[in-house]
């Protein structure tokens, strides 16, 4: 047993989750594969979205995977960093927009 929560080598074992629940695992991987195919959005655009979301959900495996995927697709580091900022902006915006709730509550409670 590794004595740390995240081991980079575990990413390679991702597929093994199907071993304990074959049907659900396979359905997930089929879906996953389909999502990232070329569609109305290009595979390249989806890769950048995935990278942004990976940062927002703070998944080190996904960050490794989609940084490499971006490199493979010839995506530049400037494009990758802008995608991360897009994710971060939405995440901080989501926090800040709750400020309105705070303001509403404050006003309601105040005379």
């Amino acid at each position: 047993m590794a004595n740390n929560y995240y081991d980079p080598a575990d990413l390679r074992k991702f597929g093994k989750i199907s071993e304990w629940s074959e049907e659900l695992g396979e359905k997930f991987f089929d879906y996953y594969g389909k999502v990232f195919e070329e569609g109305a959005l290009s595979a390249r655009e989806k890769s950048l979205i995935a990278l942004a979301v990976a940062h927002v959900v703070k998944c080190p495996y996904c960050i490794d995977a989609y940084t490499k995927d971006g490199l493979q697709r010839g995506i530049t580091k400037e494009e990758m960093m802008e995608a991360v900022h897009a994710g971060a902006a939405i995440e901080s915006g989501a926090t800040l927009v709750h400020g309105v709730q705070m303001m509403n509550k404050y006003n309601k409670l105040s005379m």
Partner: protein
Amino acid sequence: MATKSLKARHNELAETNKQLDILSGGVFADGELPRFKDKLSNIGQYPLRPKKLEIFQINVGYMCNQVCEHCHVDAGPDRKEIMTKETMQQCLDVISHTGAHTLDLTGGAPEMNPNFRWFVEEAAKVGIKDFIVRSNLTIIMANKKYNDLPDFFKEYNIHVVSSMPHYTRGKTDKQRGDGVFDKSIQALKKLNEVGYGMPDSPLKLDLVYNPSGAFLPSDQAAMERDFKKALKEDFNIEFHNLFAITNLPISRFLDYLIASDNYEDYMYSLVEAYNPAAVANVMCTNTISVSWDGWLFDCDFNQMLGLKVASKVNHIKDYNEEVLNDRNIIISQHCYGCTAGAGSSCQGTVT
């Protein structure tokens, strides 16, 4: 970035045996990853056998004006292995009889061989259908004596295949050295000027893309689209096809993988991307590779690993196509580089 070859640095990976040990040791020795041989056996393709010979590839020397970090040849200005006129003559004798329709000159920088132009002139007389020269582009700008190469290529209707790792400066220079990007752009412009790579031009100009790091190339068509758009918009440069080629874990690229602690992950990626459909068209099934000193190999990669063809005809002076074609191709784990994804050969995707 190193400015000398592994050989000049006395790096242990300059020894082919050391490289072969690494390729069959580690994760492949302890069974963590399957060997290439086992993968071929699974699909009834072991031993791997050649089909009809189509491409005759000649490495006219390991000298190069560049010292790219990923180079599988370990080429550089310090390499002195250069094909002599005598060996070239032996090659010409073979070319005039071969059934191959493509002649492919590579290096190093083939243009640095002092007899390069003579050889091209003579070989062109044989009337081969597709005559390729692999030019690294910067050589055209490296010295006045090379400035007229575009015209020279045009005169002999050479099909120019050039390496261009990325359409942005930063990435190209990191892999190939400072200034390589700007010089490559200038060279491409010169090639365009004489007609190379223009939309309907018969003067073929193709680009080769190798990933600049420990990752695999993705979809060749998408990369081609991106390259075409960027080179056209930013520099008004045209070219025909883009070949996306996987870096094989040998020589300087192997050294880089090990030094950057990426070797195991890279081998995992290659094995994971193994595509059985790519096996039928790997380069060695239709190519013979000749070294600067006339030895014969299944491919340029095996040449760099010192793995001569497993045939009693193993030198150009004894060339016999029939005997040679009746051989087993020598494989090891570096071959996974040819079967990853859509597959990869010097002509790009193979499936």
